[in-house]
């Protein structure tokens, strides 16, 4: 009897210990998963991946990227070959987007136009980020009269109308190509980024860890590059996807007004302008590049939205 009881007690004890270890292991696993996720990037990625609109937008963005990259590679139609016997063909298997007045295949021209539009978009966005971040960081970090002066200057720039400002910049260069267009768009639209970056830096500057860094004797550049700028990366990333559509649209407006890249090169805006001259009989020519612009704007916008939800801790609870 006694041995039996002892045995059963031992059994139970072993069983209990087994439970303990099991739960401990499970807990450790969960904790491990949580820690892995808790790294800033993984956490953000996880949240971004759970946002359906953002994922669809990201896919749409990739599809557009693949379209502009691969179509001109795999389609051997010469985008500039003029053939009047083929002019104004409606969309078909041979020409999915139809042909224009000169019989040029619009499928490959739209893809090439996308390369120019998106290329200008990313280049100008990068330049805007560079100028805006440097200006905003200097202004916010320096504070005092430097900050005051820089912000007043920015106020004045806000008074300049966007398109005329870009158009005058293009007139200064005297000709329009990829890079002058990038400069014109950057000059006309870097203010918002600068202002937001300054606000970010000023908010971050008040944090205890920044004061601690100062107190521990960190030099200003260490505080700026080690503590302040890395914490603004999220905002910068969001702003990339907010600026991109603005810039692409700005370029399209300029091209539509006939102030775009010189032909035979064409961006979506100049393709739309070509289409406008023939809209009564062949409306598809203006619709296709315009929808491409809309596609890009929409996907960038929802990506920015998803990134904001993923990266901004304040909105995290709502996800």
């Amino acid at each position, binding site marked *: 009897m006694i041995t039996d009881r002892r045995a059963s007690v031992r059994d139970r004890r072993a069983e209990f210990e087994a439970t303990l270890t099991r739960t401990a292991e499970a807990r450790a696993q969960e904790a491990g998963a949580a820690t892995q996720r808790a790294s800033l990037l993984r956490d953000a990625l996880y949240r971004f991946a759970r946002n359906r609109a953002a994922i669809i937008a990201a896919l749409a963005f990739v599809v557009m990227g693949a379209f502009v990259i691969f179509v001109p590679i795999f389609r051997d139609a010469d985008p500039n070959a003029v053939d009047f016997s083929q002019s104004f063909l409606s969309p078909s298997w041979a020409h999915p987007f139809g042909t224009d007045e000169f019989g040029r295949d619009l499928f490959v021209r739209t893809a090439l136009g996308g390369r120019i539009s998106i290329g200008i978009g990313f280049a100008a966005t990068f330049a805007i980020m560079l100028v805006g971040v440097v200006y905003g960081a200097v202004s916010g970090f320096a504070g005092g009269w430097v900050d005051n002066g820089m912000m*007043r*200057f920015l*106020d*004045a*720039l*806000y*008074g*300049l*109308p*966007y*398109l*005329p*400002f870009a*158009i*005058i*910049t293009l*007139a*200064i260069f*005297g000709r329009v190509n990829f890079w002058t267009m990038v400069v014109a768009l950057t000059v006309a639209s870097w203010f918002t980024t600068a202002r937001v970056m300054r606000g970010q830096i000023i908010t971050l500057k008040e944090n205890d860890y920044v004061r601690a860094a100062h107190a521990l004797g960190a030099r200003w550049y260490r505080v700026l590059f080690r503590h302040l700028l890395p914490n603004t990366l999220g905002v910068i990333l969001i702003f990339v996807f907010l600026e991109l*559509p603005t810039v692409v*649209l700005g370029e*399209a*407006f300029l091209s*539509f*007004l*006939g*102030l775009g890249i010189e032909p035979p090169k064409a961006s979506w*805006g100049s393709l*739309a*302008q070509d*289409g*406008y001259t023939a*809209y*009564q009989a062949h*409306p598809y020519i*203006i*619709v296709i590049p*315009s*929808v491409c*612009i*809309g*596609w890009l*704007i*929409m996907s960038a*916008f929802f990506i920015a939205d998803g990134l904001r939800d993923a990266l901004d801790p304040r909105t995290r609870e709502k996800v």
Partner: protein
Amino acid sequence: MLKFIARRITWTIPVILLVILMTFFMMRLIKGNPFQVTERPVPPAIQRNLDRQFHLDQPWYIQYLYYVKGVFTADLGPSLVQRDRQVNDIIKEHFPLSLKLGGFAMLFAIVVGIPLGVIAALKQNSIADYAVMTVVNSGYALPNFLIATLLIYFFAVKWREHTPFPTNGWGGPASWVLPTLALGHAPMTVLARIVRGSMLETLQQDYIRTAKAKGLRSHRVIGLHVLRNSLIPAVTAAAPLLGYLIAGSFIVETIFGLPGIGRYFVISVASRDYSVTMGITVLLSIIIIVANLAVDILYGFLDPRTREVGAR
């Protein structure tokens, strides 16, 4: 409050001076002598006289002062291409149309955009909300040259027999409709989005819950508390809306062939009529700056908290 307004107005003057200075410098950077563009070169003696007449023989800061004086006395100098015309006359001829078109578009944006935003917010996540947001997003995404062209294509070309709208021109109410829709569409969507967002935020406030809890009827809660508090942020949208209107008017006036200031700006750049280009830029800048000033002051009235913070 008076102090706030006075400070805000005082600050506007250096901003205008700075904007004129920047425009002035940019125009100077554009290469070329305006009097040497024709095939027949101007004799040196006449060139000197011309330089003297337009103060081109003076250093840049004197020229700048002359120009500032011109701006404040509403005299923007002669056109460089149409030699017999003043920039003032050109603006007087073309600006009223743009002002009218912009006014109509703004009115359309307010009358349609605000109710759409309100409906979407009150019926959040309903079919009405999704429908409104689809329209709003389409307006955000599709460039207005497409919208303008499609409006012309359907209303003025395809259904020509059934609709009274002409494809272009500015002669009577029927011809005002399509340009107004094309120009007002983008600001309308911006306004609807802002109103929806700020309504949703207001609806979550504690004082709304209190108002409901004390038994106020829902239309009173919405009319008295929600609408008033959520339309205030919409006032700040005025500046970006103005930007949309100005940029859009360039396109819309070009497409509809309207002789407005936006179209003339594009023409002046193409024909290198730089005094007109500069005059229009300065005019638009002053409009933007004054609009910002008005918004700030209005906002100071509507939301007293901003008077201290907003004092710049």
